């Protein structure tokens, strides 16, 4: 099924996705888009796990379960993060990350 596609391709794809997420994390100002970048990063990690599982240890299920749990963690993280974002919005009437900078010296 996956013959002809080397493992490295999947990994490179995941890398590109990961660093795209990092770039978004570093540049976006809106807290929600930052959250989306985090989702991208998590997703790229999932791809890595799946590829490793399929190519290197096809007789085991660790990678798949790891991805499964990551998806669950991502879901709960998104729920809490959005709750926090809504709270911040109420408190500061903005979700611009650069305006939420009270925790400093």
């Amino acid at each position, binding site marked *: 099924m996956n013959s002809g596609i080397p493992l490295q391709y999947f990994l490179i794809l995941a890398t590109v996705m990961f660093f795209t997420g990092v770039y978004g994390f*570093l540049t976006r100002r809106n807290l929600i888009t930052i959250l989306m970048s985090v989702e991208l990063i998590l997703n790229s990690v999932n791809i890595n796990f799946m590829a490793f599982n399929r190519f290197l240890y096809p007789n085991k299920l660790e990678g798949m379960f790891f991805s499964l749990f990551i998806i669950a963690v991502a879901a709960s993280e998104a729920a809490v993060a959005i709750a926090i974002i809504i709270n911040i919005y109420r408190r500061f009437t903005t979700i611009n990350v*650069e305006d939420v*900078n*009270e925790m400093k*010296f």
Partner: protein
Amino acid sequence: MINFSYTIWILLLPFLMFLLLGLAGHKLKAKLSGLLGTFGLGIITFLSYLTAYKYFFTSEKIDGAFQKITALNFTWLQFTDKLHIDMGVLLDPISVMMLIVVTTVSFMVHIYSLGYMKGEKGFERFYSFLSLFSFSMLGLVLATNIFQMYIFWELVGVSSFLLIGFYYQKPSAVRASKKAFIVTRFADLGFLIGILILSFNTKTFDFISLTNPSGAAISQGSSIGFLGLSVMTWSMIFVFLGGAGKSAMFPFHIWLPDAMEGPTPVSALIHAATMVVAGVYLVARMFPIYAISAPVALDVVAYVGAFTSLFAAVIACTQTDIKRVLAYSTMSQIGYMMLALGVAKYGGETGLGYMASMFHLFTHAMFKALLFLGAGAIIHSVHSNYMTDMGGLRKYLPITHITFLIACLTISGIPPFSGFFSKDEILAAAFQSNKFLFAVEYAVAGITAFYMFRIYFSIFWGKDTQYQHTPHEAPATMTIPLIILAIGAAVSGFIPFNKLVTSDGKILETGINLVIAIPSVLIGLLGIGIAYIMYRRESTIPDKLAAMFKYSYKWAYNKFYIDELYLFVTKKIIFRYIAVPVAWFDRHVVDATMNTIASVTQGVSFRIRGFQSGQLQKYAFVFITGAIMLAVLFIYLWK
């Protein structure tokens, strides 16, 4: 063997009383706590008399000598098999005698204070301190080993400190208590060094094995020498330093006059009768070592004692604060005792000085406590310490007058009062061994009579002073102790000390040596006569004399400027050349190092605090860059 194990209660009771009054005293009524303390001390006094009776009259003697009995001993601190510190109760003639002295005077002072301290703030505190003092003094007296003695020695110093500073709102009292503590503490350093040298060489702390005249301990250390003197001599001189500090011998005497800032009963108890003779007791306790293996140290004791007695007597003639006169008189009398010890030898006829010293210690405790308590009664009714404010008091204070007169006659050595006997023994002992010291003491006897009757006449006779309110006799709680002590002072001379307390425990045959007794009485009478002429009525003779010997009078009045000398040494020399550089070093090197560290940290963090901008994405950027760098480092560069 008689069972003496109950003597532990002599130590425990005052300690328990101290804890009770110190911890719960403020919850009790003031009067109740005073009565409790007095009652407790009454029991202890009874136990002490019982012990004395049993020891002197029923315990068996071996070879005609009283034995040293260890009533109790247990290991308190065990460091190694050989090095251990014990606590216990040692009974021998001097400790039993001291037991009587301490408990009697302490009991009298407890009763007296019920009246004297009535209504004072901190009444129960006063009684708890008195109990602490009684505990530590009794522990000192009954110590079985030199280390226990040292511990209680320091405790005595602490309670003295607490009691001198009893009126802690008064700056002068605070200064005096600090002075007393620091000076005696400084002297105690010598004591500690002495203990260490002594024990290092003899391998024991225990008094019985230390002072056994034929034991190994005495002969062992004497062979090693240092700077021309044997190591035993050095250790004994150091031990005597501690004794000199507590007993206010020259040059450590400066604390005692200032210590009169404390309440008068405290002066009577601590600074006249008991604590200040601890130094004498210490020398007496170590006497076999002094006499047999450190005669040079014993000479030091004799000369320091003689010098102090003369020195203090001269100053006493010029002071006007009656408590200070009594303080100098105390120093002078303790000098007597030291001298008597110093001229004695171990055992036999030459041990007369030892017995005389202990005898004088006993009688002195009685009459000096009486003098102080009498002075307290006078101050109580006149509200002044100064002789110049007093005069003609014999009409107002009859009981105090009579008892004070008895005490003055006693200290002047007029027969048949006790001072005559004990002083006579001392003079005889000095005559036996050293004519020069005898001459000094003979002169001091005259001066003593003079200054005692100087204050006696100034207070009770002299000019009729107008008092703001008529002085009245003290309450019974104060006069009864006065009467008891007056009886003690009058008759204690008939106690056969030569049979009871001698250097080797055996009976010493003595008699009154008329060649010495008659001149000593005569010089006493001469002193009294001069005082009578000068102070019986208002006269100009004292002022004329003072004017005639202007400079020497001024010197003596200012206590020979010893205090100023100390101040000069401490302030001008020690402070300027040691303390100031040390402080400079501390401030500019030690502190500065710390301050530099702190200020550099502060400066750096002030500059780098901008990193903590609150900008989340900056943090993330730094984190990711760092992570990439670490990855590069570990994957590619670390090989």
